[in-house]
């Protein structure tokens, strides 16, 4: 057992590092937890420039075939690139949904002409894509969407509302799942399209979150007309297309990087005086630190197991399905515990070392437990796909959508 690269991986890592050194600035030690905020308009411009550079050098999508601008590399090379890139001060995060989910769906369903038109600008960051799935009444049960697409001559007219659309305010294109036939059960009446976010009738409104950020949006569709050539897959087979999108989610090997962790909690516990001495000597505090350390290590090492499979060219086991189930509540609980250690000053946003960081975890954890699959849905997935337990009874399964209560 070892954590070393194979010779091929090591050579690739050297190549990547040399290229990054020549084209970007390496983070200093106190910038390790730097994460670019993507609500700054200048940042998008910088991100697009960085993406273009990356794409020109062949690093933008390493696993994609060469004809689409990739290099036909294995997933482990993609991971190595990302590991190295995270050590540099570069703006990231704008293109993950587009390149990780939308364009792969296009590759599965769009025409060769369309791919010729859309793939390269997306890869080079010239056009940004979003994914229009969730709705106010369809979150975990996304097949319950109500946004309608109705035939109109040789095109379609879309009416309805999407929600939680990341980056819709700066995106150029999106893929959208719509209901085209409400008279059949919910999974059967769906159809997928792509569209320009500049199409008349689309209105984007940012959602301000509890954390203060506003990266998500509501998107309203009022008589939005699109041609039938924008349809992805057959009419009524939108669920199948949506599964293609969801299967293409980024390699589930990344952990949220940066942010405070057990080291900072221990530092805080050393510096905090309780009634009987430093908090780090208190058994309750020690017990919590130990639990979170075991989780932190467990997640890192579980990811190493997944990377091992990728490195050997094997399909990873289901072990990475535990990562968000553990990481999200840990983030929330550890943030809250650190605030408690600070005493009444734990509520202050200034003057207290690490307060803002742990507060960000405490409040951000509440969102992280929901985004991209709730704690509960993820447990269902483990139970069904890993342990082979049956799905819950679905009372709406065979009921036409428009007959549902």
């Amino acid at each position, binding site marked *: 057992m070892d954590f070393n690269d194979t010779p091929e991986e090591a050579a690739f890592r050297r190549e990547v590092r040399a290229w990054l050194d020549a084209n970007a600035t390496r983070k200093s030690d106190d910038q390790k937890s730097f994460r670019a905020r993507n609500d700054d308009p200048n940042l998008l411009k910088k991100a697009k420039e960085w993406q273009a550079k990356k794409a020109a050098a062949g690093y933008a999508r390493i696993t994609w075939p060469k004809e689409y601008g990739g290099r036909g590399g294995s997933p482990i090379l993609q991971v190595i690139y990302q590991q190295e890139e995270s050590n540099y001060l570069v703006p990231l995060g704008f293109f993950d949904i587009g390149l990780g989910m939308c364009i792969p769906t296009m590759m599965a369903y769009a025409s060769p002409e369309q791919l010729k038109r859309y793939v390269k600008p997306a890869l080079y960051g010239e056009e940004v894509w979003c994914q229009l799935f969730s709705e106010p009444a369809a979150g975990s049960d996304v097949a319950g969407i109500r946004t309608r697409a109705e035939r109109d001559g040789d095109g379609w007219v879309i009416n309805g509302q999407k929600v939680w659309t990341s980056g819709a305010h700066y995106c150029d294109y999106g893929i959208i799942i719509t209901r085209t036939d409400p008279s059949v059960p919910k999974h059967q009446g769906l159809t997928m399209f792509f569209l320009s976010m500049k199409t008349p009738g689309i209105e984007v409104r940012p959602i301000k979150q509890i954390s203060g950020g506003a990266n998500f949006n509501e998107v309203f569709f009022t008589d939005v007309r699109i041609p039938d050539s924008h349809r992805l897959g057959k009419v009524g087979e939108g669920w199948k297309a949506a599964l293609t999108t969801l299967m293409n989610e980024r390699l589930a090997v990344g952990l949220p990087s940066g942010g405070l962790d057990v080291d900072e909690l221990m530092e805080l516990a050393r510096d905090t005086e309780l009634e009987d001495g430093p908090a780090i000597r208190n058994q309750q505090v020690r017990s919590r630190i130990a639990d979170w350390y075991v989780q932190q290590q467990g997640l890192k090492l579980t990811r190493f197991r997944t990377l091992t499979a990728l490195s050997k060219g094997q399909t990873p086991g289901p072990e990475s399905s535990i990562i968000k189930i553990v990481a999200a509540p840990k983030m929330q609980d550890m943030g809250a515990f650190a605030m408690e250690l600070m005493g009444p000053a734990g509520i202050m946003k200034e003057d207290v070392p690490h307060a803002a960081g742990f507060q960000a975890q405490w409040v951000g954890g509440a969102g992280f437990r929901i985004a991209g699959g709730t704690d509960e849905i993820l447990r269902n997935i*483990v139970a069904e796909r890993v342990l082979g337990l049956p799905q819950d009874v679905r009372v709406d399964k065979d009921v036409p959508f428009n007959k549902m209560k």
Partner: protein
Amino acid sequence: MNFDFSDDQKLLKEQVRKFLADKCPMKVVRRVLDGNEAFADEVWKGLVELGVPATAIPEAYGGLGLSPLELCVVAEEIGRAAAPVPFDSSVVLATEALKLGGSEAQKKRWLPLLAEGKAIGTLAVAEGAQPPRPRTISTTYGGGRLNGRKVPVADGDVATFAIVMSKNALVLVDLNRAAVTKKRVETIDPARKHAELVFNDASAELLGGENEGWRLLERLYDAAAVYFAFAQVGGAEAAMYMARDYALQRQAFGRPIGSYQAIKHKLADCYVKLELARSNAYYGAMMLSEGGADLAVAAAAARIAATEAYDFAAKENIQTHGGIGFTWEADTQFHLRRAKLMALNIGGPMAWKDKLVNRLEQKNAA
């Protein structure tokens, strides 16, 4: 990145697994639990034939000379079967104690016998009510004589020799020759028999230096924590799948109980804890096999995660079974008992969490 066992190691694991599935089904565990025999002799003999006790003993001492990684995969299978054999006592604790602290003569004398299954060793630390600590241990050693009382000692009434913690030293006692009174004691897990040993001027010899005992014991426990973590992972996985199988088959309110989220989420939590434990155990194995500086931290993390995973799976297995799971005739009890035995034998989670944070502080200060 190569954070996995090799194909050969996986093959060995599969071999032990098949043997135990065949020769050590739950009815054998039940037989030992209900009966008087010290352990399942035929299972132990088979494991000896497979070379299990010889696995990590160097070839120079009659062993197979394999690495700790091989013993880790074997431990996982012993744990999965909740096998009623002297693995924890003899193959792990006594063997590792000799490897760590034994003199050349002691190793020459005992390791070949252990490898061949001709001797069974055990470790005797606890002295009844108090958790063993330097100030609570009253067993004394001096002038080649040992005096004191140790209980509970795994396989104490049938072991050939014991490694005993006195006030400040580990000592080795040949139980067939020395003045020792042995008495079996009742415990929560009768599938692993335990005894009380009373030493009355028993002839004994130092294992390691005179004031080295506690330091040696700590190192021994670190190695054992890793091996036991694998056994606990195996047991946790077995308990989880026992619960899963029952949840698929048992009907309530017109459908399998495994379709209810209350059950699904409980079993998903078993899986989450199991994988956290497995990953931490792998790292412990890696540090153990390369003598890595991070062993102290890795062993503690593996111990904590694996203890929690097995304890949780064992008790939720019973909960998933409902009433039938609480009967003597159900197989659920074996893992409940073994999980608790293994959670306590080399110190419980509270002690290991304290140790872990101490070690993290040392690591951060370095």
